[in-house]
């Protein structure tokens, strides 16, 4: 397999309440640079777990995860942190902004942490991102002072400040109204046309239509894929998966 992201026969098990829960069973996946892939499945199917492994937030119990040529499965905690800093941007359902940092500070934080880019360049990048995401006027505000849609756009800007190889989004519209959610997905589309590799986890067929490829997952296994599907087709295949 060759690609920006290569997952080979990955297994992942969690212990919940003392009993093991198999989240992923022998998952294999390859994503090319510049792809926009959506991962869909019912609750508990393992889609978020797969996303976490792709982002180096967790390690597989077995199998290989290679992203941008780096074997995440073999990395230490510190190496994973450095990897995330430089190669991955995350966007979460609940935004996960730092509550006592302003919008600008939140956006610049990953770059400051990385330290490879000078302060002036960091500010310039932040300005560009804020303009692109239409949040420039909110730069001095705290997250609590923003709407849901604005917060998510801040989160997107933060995820992009270090120009990551991949952008991972876990239900990014789950906490937004349809208008805001639609705006976020349009932004993703724009980014993708600019060459950004995006992996989107969602349960919303409408959101998945923005992706070029949809991967379906159930009970920890990939059950199928589709390219260029519309919402109805996605919904059908999703319900087919849910019904087993």
């Amino acid at each position, binding site marked *: 397999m060759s690609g920006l992201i290569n997952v080979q026969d990955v297994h992942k098990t969690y212990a919940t309440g003392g009993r093991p829960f198999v989240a992923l069973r022998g998952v294999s996946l390859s994503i090319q640079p510049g792809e926009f892939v959506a991962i869909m499945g019912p609750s508990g199917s393992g889609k978020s777990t797969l996303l976490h492994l792709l982002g180096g937030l967790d390690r597989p119990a077995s199998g290989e995860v290679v992203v941008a040529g780096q074997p995440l499965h073999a990395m230490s905690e510190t190496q994973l*942190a450095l990897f995330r800093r430089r190669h991955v941007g995350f966007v979460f359902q609940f935004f996960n902004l*730092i509550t006592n940092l302003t919008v600008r500070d939140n956006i610049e*934080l990953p770059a400051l942490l990385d330290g490879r880019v000078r302060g002036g360049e960091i500010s310039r990048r932040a300005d560009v991102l804020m303009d692109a995401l239409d949040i420039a006027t909110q730069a001095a505000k705290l997250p609590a002072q923003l709407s849901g849609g604005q917060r998510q756009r801040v989160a997107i800007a*933060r995820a992009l400040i270090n120009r990551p190889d991949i952008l991972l989004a876990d239900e990014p519209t789950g906490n937004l109204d349809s208008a805001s959610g639609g705006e976020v997905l349009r932004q993703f589309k724009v980014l993708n046309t600019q060459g950004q590799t995006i992996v989107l986890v969602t349960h919303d067929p409408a959101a998945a239509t923005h992706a070029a490829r949809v991967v379906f997952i159930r009970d920890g296994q990939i059950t199928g894929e589709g390219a260029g599907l519309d919402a109805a087709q996605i919904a059908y295949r999703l319900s087919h998966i849910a019904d087993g």
Partner: protein
Amino acid sequence: MSAILRKIKADLLNRRLSAFLVTLTIFASSALLTLTATTLSNMSGVYDRSFAELNGAHLWLYFNRDQVSHSDVARVEGLPDVVASTGLQVSQVSRAELGSDKMTISLRQVGAQQPQVNALRITAGRYLSPDDERGVLVDNHLAGQYNVRPGDTISISTASGYKPLRVVGLALNPTWDTYRVTQPAYLYALDKTFQSLFPDSSAWDWSVGLRLANPDAASETLASAQAMLRSKAIQDHTDWRNVRDAYMFSAQLNLMFLVTFGLFALAAAVLIMTNSISGAVLAQFRDIGVLKALGFTGRQVAAVYLGQNLIMGLVGSLLGIAAGVALAPVPLNTLLRSLNAAPRLVFDPVLLGGVGFGVLLVVMVSTVWPARRGARVNTIQAITIGYELPSAKPSRLAALARAARLPIPVVIGVKDAFARRGRAAITLISLLVGVMSLVFSFELNAALDGYLRDPSLAGLVYDAWVSREDMSDSAARRILAQAPGVKAVMAHASAKAKTSDGKSFRVRAQEGDLTQFPYKLEAGRLINPDAEGEAIIGVGLQTWLGLNVGDTLRVTVNDSAQRSPVEWQVVGVYREPADGGQMAMISLRTLRRVDHTAEPDTYLIRLSPNADLGLLRAYLKSRAGESLILAVVNTQLSDLLQFKLTMLTLSVTLSAIALISVFNSSVLNMRERIGEVGTFKTLGMTPRQVVTMVLASGGTLGVLAGVIGVPLGVVVVQVALTEMGKLFGFGSFDMRPDWAALLLPALVAVGVGVLGSVVPGRWAARLNVVEVLQYE
């Protein structure tokens, strides 16, 4: 009610760490409060308890042997207010020899059993047994002055020369008066020993000790006795209240420091407890919001937190009081022993109950206020924001840290230290209390050490004194003027003065170069020895009589010598170590204006730095025989080690409580920020950087606590000691803070701030990001 109880149980069981830390804080605070309260209550009544245990005599009468008979003594014992008597006591004043030291003593005859009235406290060795034909008990004060121990030999001067006796024990007499009535030190021997040394009963001195129904009626009983007997039958007397005042002086300075620190420790422990409990409740604002969303009323919300905190308070206070009771004897028994009191602490159940009640009251107040505040906050705001919105103001400290190019995790940590002002204040207060307690302890110890090194700070301005017997004043002065190693001599006579409203006090009448004796002036100037009618007054006298420099002091002096009052102008206020500072000083010339017979009986000596005491003694013996007796001043400040130990114990306990509180605050802070920590890790913060961030946050507060707490502590201790000094008649305190040494408390503050964050920091670093994000 079941809903409330269920929530209480769930909180206690599921927030074990937080519950444990709050309970630990209450436990430690209760132990400290118990220790402090027990210390203060035991120290304040030391003499009274000792006096009661020994069945002390409230009034001692010393008779003029030629003017009194056995029946006279019996009539005195039969006075209406007298409930018990020592019976007629016989004694003989003589000289004693201990190595090369000689001193005047009074050998007193005692029985083979301890007396019923005015028993002796044996502080070392044992009481005399019937076999001790050559045994003697030595008074505790004398033993301390000359380092006498059981087994030593002391020789008593008799008509046929010095007779050696073996010291079998050291004894404390509860009514041996050192100040108001000048008495020689007491030694005690069995009747057969006494009579073998002094067979002539006509030369014996007579005295009797009386226990009174009303202890405060000593003056009235004395007057009745005087009225009943011949005019000069009673040569002198000792009032137990004067002895108590004199007794307490030696511990006064230390007691004052202990009281000062004790009060501070009490206030600090309460503050830390309040802080911890309030902080813990405030950390549960989200929970409060959820409870309200579910339908809990404000009162029910308060009941939930009151319930769980009272349970912790009850457990913590009971265990803490028990620990305080168990630990108190460790420093305090030796302290009591050093005060010549029975090494047996008294625990007052009412006091202990008061501590328990007080702790629970603090718990209640600390809980109800934040709980009710939470109940009033908008429900959605409480759920989404918690206790407080992070501050929107830019952090100057963080900007400074960034300008200094400190690593980003440090900058974030510094900024985060004050992101939530309420939480920061809670942590800072705990740290400040810990720092200030250390500063307090440091400064008090330094002050105590200062007084030890330079007793003149406490008013002890001479190195030795010489008492004169069987020699004229002029002859004594001639001899002393040429004595080797003597830098200055001041002739000293004692007098008694009484104001028109009956307040009596002692007066020093001195002649010599006062400038050679470093009296510490609080105001005004020293008396001019050549001028008449000038007086300086001790700080205690100033407070007692309400006098100031420039006022006139109108008194009668030495009742029998002068009927009309005299007036002295107060020209200064000075530190007087005796009688709680309730003394005055005039020139001998001034005294002779009212008492022509006044003559010095003592000569205060200042020695040269390398004076040879052996040479001086030999000189005096060769020139004056036994007419001039030299005594070197042993610092009248009692052994400070035990007090230091007690203060150190309280101080360290307080700092430990502060550390627990900081740790608790840090854990709560971490809990509140668990999502953010997950986000930081997601963004690429390494575990080490997470720890650095958390430590930087704690360390920032520690630095601030050090910078504020050290000077604040110095100010507080100075103010506290000044007020205590006024209360105890001590005057102002010479305190020069050793800022270099005070760096240590500042460093401790930083250390505590960092240490209190280590565990939460490491915990945060080890957090599984996925679990954290899912938890959020």
